[in-house]
Structure formats: structure tokens, C-alpha cells
């Protein structure tokens, strides 16, 4: 198909034209879900309630899975023993969000990141492709820390919610904060 001169089918509507269409139907799906966390992650969530971060080790290849899996994805065998990690780790990547889930502007930007957790058998070397880790909020760091790159590689640890407010959720960890100081 040649260049710009080709005429393609399709009728563009401006925003207000769409809302004035005859017979426009508005519908909001009514659907509510309850998700079971499964064998491995249920135990992990129990651990969070106790202020512990639990993983599982594959007895064949030695991979440590945090969050835990019931089976090793690579060996396709059941993972064996539970291992507890300290919760300390390094920031692998981090960003500053100015928008909500539904793309509304946030008053205060939010910083979130991937935390590579320290675990036995993992060197934390840069060329490690897989690693135990969590996706979470970061606190005690500024947007400038993210933009300058200072935050990457920063040593962090979990800031736990007070025991009485923990419910067995990923949010029992309030955020990860700098481990120094």
C-alpha cells in the first residue's frame, strides 16, 4: 500500500460526537471477585502478619523464590523447604508516579520500585537475571533520588505496619525504606 494518498476505511469521532451517538449504551459491569492466595502465597501472607518474609527453595536447582511458589517453574518439581529472608535488599529500579490506577493526577507523587532481596545463594551480582524480590512502595527517598539514579542499588529494609494493623496482606509492609541511619 502506497503512501499517504491511500484512503483507508474508518470514521473518526470526536469525544463529544461519541457521547451524542444515537443509541449509545452505557454499561458498568457488576462483578465482584474473591481471590484465594493459593498454597504457597497464603503461607507467605501469614508470615507477613508475623513480620517475616518467607520464600521457598527448589531442592533441585537451588533457586530461592520470594514470593514463594509451590513448584519450581524451571525444574517443574515441588519446591521444598521454606526459607526466611531478612527483608533487606537493594533497589533494582524505582519510579515516581504522578497518576493513580485510573489515571487521575495524584496530589503527592508516589515512589515505587522493585527490591532485590538478599537471600542465601544469591550474590546480587549485576548480571543475575533472576532474583528473589518484591514490588513495593519506597519511602524515605525523594523524586530527585530516583531521577539522579541515587536510589538504584540503595540498601533498603521493610517498614512494617504495627502488629495490630497487619491483616496478612502485601500491605502489611508499609514500604521499603533506606536501611542506613
Amino acid at each position, binding site marked *: 500500500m502506497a*503512501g499517504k494518498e491511500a484512503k483507508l476505511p*474508518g470514521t473518526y469521532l470526536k*469525544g463529544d460526537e461519541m457521547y451524542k451517538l444515537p443509541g449509545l449504551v452505557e454499561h458498568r459491569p457488576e462483578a465482584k471477585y474473591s481471590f484465594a492466595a493459593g498454597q504457597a502465597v497464603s503461607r507467605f501472607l501469614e508470615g507477613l502478619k508475623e513480620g517475616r518474609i518467607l520464600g521457598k527453595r527448589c531442592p533441585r536447582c537451588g533457586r530461592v523464590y520470594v514470593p514463594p511458589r509451590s513448584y519450581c517453574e524451571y525444574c517443574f518439581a515441588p519446591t521444598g523447604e521454606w526459607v526466611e529472608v531478612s527483608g533487606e535488599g537493594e533497589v533494582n529500579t524505582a519510579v515516581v*508516579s504522578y497518576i493513580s*490506577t485510573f489515571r487521575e493526577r495524584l496530589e503527592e507523587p508516589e515512589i515505587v520500585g522493585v527490591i532485590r532481596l538478599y537471600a542465601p545463594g544469591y550474590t546480587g551480582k549485576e548480571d543475575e537475571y533472576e532474583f528473589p524480590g518484591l514490588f513495593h512502595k519506597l519511602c524515605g527517598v525523594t523524586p530527585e533520588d530516583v531521577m539522579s539514579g541515587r536510589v538504584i542499588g540503595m540498601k533498603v529494609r521493610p517498614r512494617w505496619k504495627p502488629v495490630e494493623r497487619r491483616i496478612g496482606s502485601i500491605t502489611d509492609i508499609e514500604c521499603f525504606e533506606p536501611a542506613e541511619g
Partner: protein
Amino acid sequence: MVVARPNIHVKNRVAIVGAGLTLFRRRMLETPRELAWEAARMALEQAGLTLRDIDCVVIGSAPDAFDGVHMKGEYLADGAGGLGRPTVRVYVGGGTGVFVPIAAWWHVASGLCRSVLAVAEEKMSPAHPHPQGVFAYIWDPILERPLGPNLIWIFALEMRRYMYKCNVDKKTIAKVSVKNKRNALDHPAAQAAANITVEDVLKSEVLVWPVQRLDISPVSDGAGALVMVSENEARRVTDSPVWVEGVGWTLDNTHWYNRDLAYPRYVNYAARMAYKMAGIERPWKEIDVAEPYDPFDYKELHHIEGLMLARRCEAPKLLEEGWFERDGELPTSPSGGLLGVGNPIAAAGIMKVAEIFWQLRYEAGARQVKKPVHKGVAQAWGDLMQAGTVIVLGN
């Protein structure tokens, strides 16, 4: 992980003989199946065939939640020419658009069908106020959704990691957006074609730093289609078939935060599979034109590296040298890509395959790359940084 050993003992060689597209626009009057029909009709017309000549139909569309219609394969079937025929819908998130011709390929290569109509459609406009809300459901309900994520987070996290690991700044990455939106000025379907500058990108609304408004492709409605046939059929209908020389696809896990996002391993595995089938040993030399998936500007660079068209972390440097321009050594996204033409998800992937098809037939008009072309590659990516789909074409 192991790279799959493709079965090269195929029954039929497969050619693309026609392609069709609708306009890509933020919202359109046509229903999803009307869009599918328009694209399918054009592809058949270009191939000089009618629906009667088609044995099987492959449909691709991304999450049902965008169109707001479940069973989208069945819903689209009549518009895609699928009634009374073996018809299937495939889906691998954003990777779907390239996966549709891959699935069509095995329909023909296996000897099951002589001719396939491959149709990809997406209508994102029904979900409002913004389709962003629909993306909330791709996140893990237990470990991710409670954190209130926005889809752009994951791209920003990946972009930040890539910038760190490869020591690239936003100024360089913005040049992809500038290039692709400019290329799209010559594309008849284009929704977001523009002459912009690096400064425009850097001054656009910051959504999730480092991602700004002009780093991202738009939300779109649109459809695309290809006619793919066996060698015998191809010889009958055209003097310039474009051959599918290799296909590859792989999935990684959904645990994206347990992997280093700086390099797309899944794209690389898919590329190796496709190159092996195509007998390509040095893709950076043997590929003449490429359409790497560019829903975000950094992703084009990321995918260029995954496709081994540049060494790791070398794509930004080559970009600066003009390597990927239409008159460059290895033009990428000469169509204008998702950044310029638009991103009706599945349709955007097939648009990229259609572009390589037109480039290899020297039919791309003002978009035709300067160098002679023999082999091209199109690629798409999908889901939680995990799906890679690759197709290698030759003339």
C-alpha cells in the same frame, strides 16, 4: 530455559499475498466487527482473492475488557470471514498482533489449510473515562493490586532499569518518539503523526517518571488483516509473494519483579527461534528493515537489542548516529510504529507485519526505505514483560 527447536520440515512454504488496514483513531463509529470486516476486505482485494478462496481464519484481539464484549473471537468471526470455516482466536497480550500471522503460518505450513485470512482488531474507546482502568486487571490480585498500580508503572520501572544499566538518558530515548512520529506523517492510517522535537517530549506531562506523555503511543481503535497462502496458491495469485521465513514466540513468567527488566530475554528467545528457522546467523547484518514493537519509545531500543539488531546497550548509540532512520543502515519502524501510527493493540502488531510486507514489495511509497531490502523482521511484546513474538519475512 531452552530455545525451542523449530520444526523446519514444514509441508508448505507460506507467503503473505495481501494486507489491509483501517484508519487508527482514538475512537471510531464502526463496531469491532465492522472494523475487522473493512481490514479483511481490503486484504482480500489486494490479494486478488475473495472469501471463497479462504480455507481458514485466524483472529487476534487483546483483552475482551477493552471492547467490552466477551468471546471476542466468536463475536468477530463474521466480520473476519470466519463463518463456516475452521476459525480460531489467539491471544498473547500486546504480542497478539504478530502472533496472529504466526498462527496463520502454522495453519498453512502444516498442510491443514491452503489459505488463511489473519485478522486483528482492537477497539479501546468503549472503556471510559480512560482504558487505563481496564489495565488494572492484568496485575496479580494478591501481591500487586493492593498497591494500587497503574499500568505505566511497569514500563517506567523497566525504562528506569534500562536507563541505569545502559547509561542512557531521556534525551536520547526521546529521539525514538521524534523519529517514529515523523515517519508516521507518510502513513495513511496514522493517528499520532507529528513533527515534534526532543524538547516537546521532555516538556510533555510527566505521568510516571521517567515516562512522559510523548514517550507513549496513543489509545486507539483499528483493525488490520493479512492473506497468507501456501506456495502453490501464492504462485497462482501474485508475482511478488513475501515469504514467511521464520517464526518464533516465547513466554516468560508473570513474576516480572523477580527478573532483571533491562533485557527482554523472552524477545531474544523468540528471535533466535525465528532466525534459526530463517537460516539467519547474523541478524544485525542480514536484516534490512525492522519493525520492533514500540508502545513506548525506550521499548524500541530494548527490542532492537532483544532482536540482536544491536549489541546490548548499543541501540541508543546507533540511534544517535541515525542508524535507524529510513535512510539509515537498518531502518526501524519506517511505518511510524505504534508511537506514530497508533496502538489498537492487536491491530498495531499486524500493522507492523503489513509494513514489512509492503517494504519487501517496494510498495511503501513515501515510507519506502532507501536501501535495497531482502529480509525484514517484525516483533511484538506483551503482558507483564513476558511475551515475545517474532516473524521474519523475505522477498
